């Protein structure tokens, strides 16, 4: 927990530094018609650097030994994260509906170990219902791929 906490504070300090750098480029003073673009971000970032420095000091002085995440906890978290990331990447190529079907199917089968019948039914039904609600009912378009193009959408 301590290391993760200190690391986060350090990252925030760094981010604050980057913002200060950009704010100075934009101008932090008084322009022709009021404060320049960098004025507000500059002071926010200065405060962020100070705050995260204090958090860093506070963390390093504490003596918490609890781990940020245990191996048993990280497993399921990654099992959600990496298929979701793959699914989002797939959306660029095959559209949201097909990617969702594959993601739902994969997760239910590989993690939930549900029967094939249930997996296939739900993996097809959920994207289909989403399609009906968004594309046909509320006319909100989602990313589509070759399958939808073939079907004429």
């Amino acid at each position, binding site marked *: 927990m301590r290391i993760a906490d200190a690391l986060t504070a350090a990252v925030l300090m760094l981010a604050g530094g980057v913002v200060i750098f950009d704010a100075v480029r934009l101008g932090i003073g008084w322009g022709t018609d009021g404060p320049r673009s960098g004025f507000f971000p500059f002071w926010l970032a200065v405060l962020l650097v100070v*705050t995260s420095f204090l958090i860093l000091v506070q963390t390093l002085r504490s003596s918490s030994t609890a781990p940020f995440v245990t191996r048993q906890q990280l497993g399921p978290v990654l099992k959600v994260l990496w298929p979701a990331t793959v699914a*989002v990447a797939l959306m660029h190529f095959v559209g*949201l509906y097909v990617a969702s079907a594959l993601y739902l199917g994969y997760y239910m089968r590989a993690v939930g170990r549900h029967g094939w019948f249930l997996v296939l039914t739900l993996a097809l039904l959920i994207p289909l219902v989403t399609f009906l609600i968004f594309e046909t009912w509320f006319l909100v378009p*989602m990313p589509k791929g070759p399958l939808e193009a073939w079907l004429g959408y």
Partner: protein
Amino acid sequence: MGLENLLLGFQVAITPFNLVVAVIGITLGTIIGVLPGLGGANGVAILLPLTFTMPPTSAIILLTSLYWGALFGGAITSILFNIPGEPWSVATTFDGYPLARQGEGGQALTAAFTSSFVGALFSIALITLFAPLLAEIALKFGPPEFFAIQLLTFSSFVGLGGGNPLKSLASILIGFILGAVGLDIVTGQLRMTFGVTELMKGFDFIVAVIGLFGIGEILLSVEEGLAFHGARTGMNLHVVLDTWKILPRYWRTFVRGSFIGFWMGFKPGGATPASFMSYAFAKRFSRRPERFGRGELEGVVAPETAAHAAGVAAMLPMITLGIPGSPTAAVMLGGLIIWGLQPGPMLFKDKPDFVWGLIASMYTGNIIGVLMVLAGVPLFAAILRIPFAILTPLIVVVCAVGSYAVHNSMMDVWYMLIFGIIGYVFKKLDYPLAPLVLALVLGDLAENALRQSLIMSQGSLSIFFTRPIAGAITTLAVLFFLLPVLTPWWRRLRGVPATAPTSTHG
């Protein structure tokens, strides 16, 4: 005068279409409240794109109804499954779950819903009375006053929010900085884009809400390897009527909870402390405090009344000042802007049918809501019997759809995943998420108010102290910011040993 307007509002709220919208909103809201990982804020965020084509009044009724539904739904999981759906239903689990284990789940649920309803009604009545007055005062506000109120909003997270004040401050600053990314509308310059075209649009708070609260919450809940151990309910009309016969006995708790809820609620982040405070008071004044925590009905009544009263009260600053009291209200405020309405005191003058329709719909929505949840408990509880391996990917897909629909941009879906990871890490490290979201929403408004104030004063910060209203509010805000520093010092002065900072969620 006020009554006339309210009647006008009821004429708007009680059209068949708006009633159907309310029923749909409450149903979806209750489902969202019951589902782990989805709460009021991201439920409203996901649904927001669907309202773009609706008339604004129906749209706000849909979103507020969803919010009431989510508030009711949180109680179901707390009592039957010992899983607080929202931080403010944590206190409901203390006595709700033991009651359910003893086979009194029906009684506990009836008490929870009825208390929620009473608390909500109390707050709505106060909103009806005070909203026009507050809007009238707010009409006289200039940029310095608005900036002072923003300052007060954020200072109360630091000073009164509980948890680590430094981390609350860091969250606020991160929110404001993220909000500043992209085009500066005043000077037309690009800020913090570092030449990346995708960053020009900046970060949309809706995507941030869906990622931080939706995906982040899912990651956090799978960590525990979730298995639900639900208690059975015997819920029928008989139980409901029997419970209603007992409830008037706790009228003191109802009154106390309502007042605490309203008072804490119109300040940001108030619902959670309100529910705990109300629970603590009920225990303190009870004739049998030893029964609390083992299944005392009053221990369900107290937090639920306060939490729901606070949840409703959070709408008051949103409609009168244009400053949301909770993340959910913040998302609704974003909706208002998208629908082409200018949030703030002018709404009462420009769009009375919208404001009063909204206030009237709070009455109708909560009446329909309490009846629907009382009838639908077995149905809603059944949702939690859906295996986790089906719910998890389903929620992820719903979140992705909601994020994409905001701007039709795949980039937003990636942001959602990144915000999800940030939300997970921040939650674990006790960085509060609500102030981050609020700062992201209010970023532009706050910056403009600050700029205009400084132009008025030619660059001097003294303008926030010399104008009487702004001065009073700013002073209070500064006091709140300094509270975490002053409290230990004050304790030492009085010879009380300083207590270690306790980490409270929410």
